């Protein structure tokens, strides 16, 4: 004997309504903790901006034809985006999976791992796109001239944040203990944000480091933000966008694959 016949159309992969459901959950939750997140996501990069901008700025007059505050102010956007995305998903998804068991409840509803990860990553990327503009606003207070191109900074932050948020989900799905996250921070995150052309140009580094820098997704974000602020560079910028899109797509799929392994027995 078989069970009762299905009453309606079968559901498929990556449905908008399921992703929206995950996003709505995040938005409603965000209403209960937005203050603390806003402070941590904006204050930290601003401190970096002030420390480097005015600390080194007193020693260095111009870098690549820009005032050092302008150079760092635009570069720090990438750092803010990365911090707001990678740490949020690394710790957030681990806690939701292991301690709060939130994902068990969501996956018992008609939502699959692909939709769950996609919803989480889209939300964090959107947040990163918004919070990433904080250093730019602070830099304006200290002399950075606004320009129309800066309106492209939130979308650039979104694309970059999507990749880093996915990377965070991937790491959370790979590592078994939250204590092991410090390895990733030391070995991956710190070198990436230091060698991205944020605080000093890559030109002065050894050739191998310059080559390696071009494989750093954050470098492409830094370049795009600077070009958005001070003038686009045509196909070069298309290449930067392409690099970020590839990084995002690869990390997104890897994050889904590893999360499925972790969440489904």
């Amino acid at each position, binding site marked *: *004997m078989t*069970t*009762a016949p299905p009453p309606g159309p079968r559901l498929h992969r990556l449905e908008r*309504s399921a992703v929206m459901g995950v996003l709505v959950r995040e938005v409603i939750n965000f209403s*209960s903790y937005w203050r603390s997140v806003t402070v941590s996501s904006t204050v930290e990069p601003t401190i970096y901006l002030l420390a480097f901008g005015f600390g080194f700025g007193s020693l260095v007059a111009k870098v690549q034809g820009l005032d050092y505050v302008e150079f760092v102010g635009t570069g720090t956007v990438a750092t803010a985006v990365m911090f707001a995305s990678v740490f949020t998903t690394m710790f957030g998804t681990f806690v939701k999976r292991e301690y709060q068991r939130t994902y068990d*409840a969501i996956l018992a509803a*008609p939502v699959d791992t692909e939709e769950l990860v996609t919803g989480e990553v889209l939300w964090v990327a959107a947040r990163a796109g918004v919070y990433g503009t904080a250093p730019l606003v602070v830099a304006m207070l200290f002399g950075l001239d606004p320009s129309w191109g800066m309106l492209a900074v939130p979308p650039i932050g979104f694309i970059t944040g999507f990749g880093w948020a996915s990377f965070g989900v991937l790491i959370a799905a790979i590592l078994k203990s939250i204590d092991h996250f410090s390895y990733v921070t030391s070995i991956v995150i710190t070198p990436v944000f230091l060698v991205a052309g944020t605080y000093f140009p890559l030109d002065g580094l050894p050739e191998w480091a310059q080559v390696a820098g071009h494989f750093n997704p954050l470098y492409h974000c830094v370049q795009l933000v600077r070009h958005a602020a001070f003038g686009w560079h045509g196909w070069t910028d298309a290449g930067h966008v392409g690099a970020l899109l590839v990084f995002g797509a690869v990390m997104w799929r890897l994050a889904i694959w590893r999360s499925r392994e972790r969440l489904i*027995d």
Partner: protein
Amino acid sequence: MPPLAIRLHGVRKTYGALVAVDGLDLVVPEGTCVGLLGPNGAGKSTTMRMLTAQAIPDAGEIEVLGHRLPGQSKSARALMGVVPQLDKLDTTLTVEQNLVVFTHLYRIRRTERRAAVERALGIANLADRRDTRVDKLSGGMRRRLLIARALVHRPRLVLMDEPTVGLDPQVRQEIWALIDALRSEGVSILMSTHYIEEAERLADTVTVMSHGRAVAAGVPDVLIAEHCGAEAVEVYGPPARLAEVEAGAQAIGLRTRRTGTSVALLRLQDATGPVPPGERRPANLEDVFVLLTGEEIT
């Protein structure tokens, strides 16, 4: 026989060397409440996880409301509600916000969300707590909210994993009343529990699980009559006396069940000699369980 809400056939699930579910056959006819009875480690929770495709069986067939799992699990999950054993609520949100989230996850139409939330609040008797944050609720209220959350989309099938574990007796009665009301509305229910009284009170049929297998299935009264007879004799005494009674009872063909302070003599109709004196009581589902599995339910 009504159509089936759930059908499992020959389902097996292993975790490395551990066999969690071992060739399980289980059916839940539509509109009935089936109790999945077993001690910790019997495979109940793994079975529940397989029914939501959060665990994938190594072998066997699973069908839920006409959908084959795991391939069509998402369609099946849209028609069922799940009350998990652990609470898994968003604790910083209010009661109402928790329900609103699930109206979206269950794809309830925008125009129907408000009514769905109100209905779920009414079922769980939480309307006056709608604005209370979950971390301010009592354990019983949180469990009621879990049930409300599972019912927000009017599911045809509800899976309940130990719905009253850890609750005090009064709250347990409230939850039972809620489940009973659902059952009378024709919702199919699969409820895992290790509380005998819960299974006796709520389940139309029970499936007794042990070591990943279904060792018995049927209507509680029939199972009791079949395995234990109508009555049992409970003999109390010091350990040496109980051992003596037990040996004597087994010698005249009775089945026995040992607890800490007594020994129960079962299947009195099989006695080939005089039954030792003791306190007579109706045989119960716990006797069946212990007899079939050799394990006491804690």
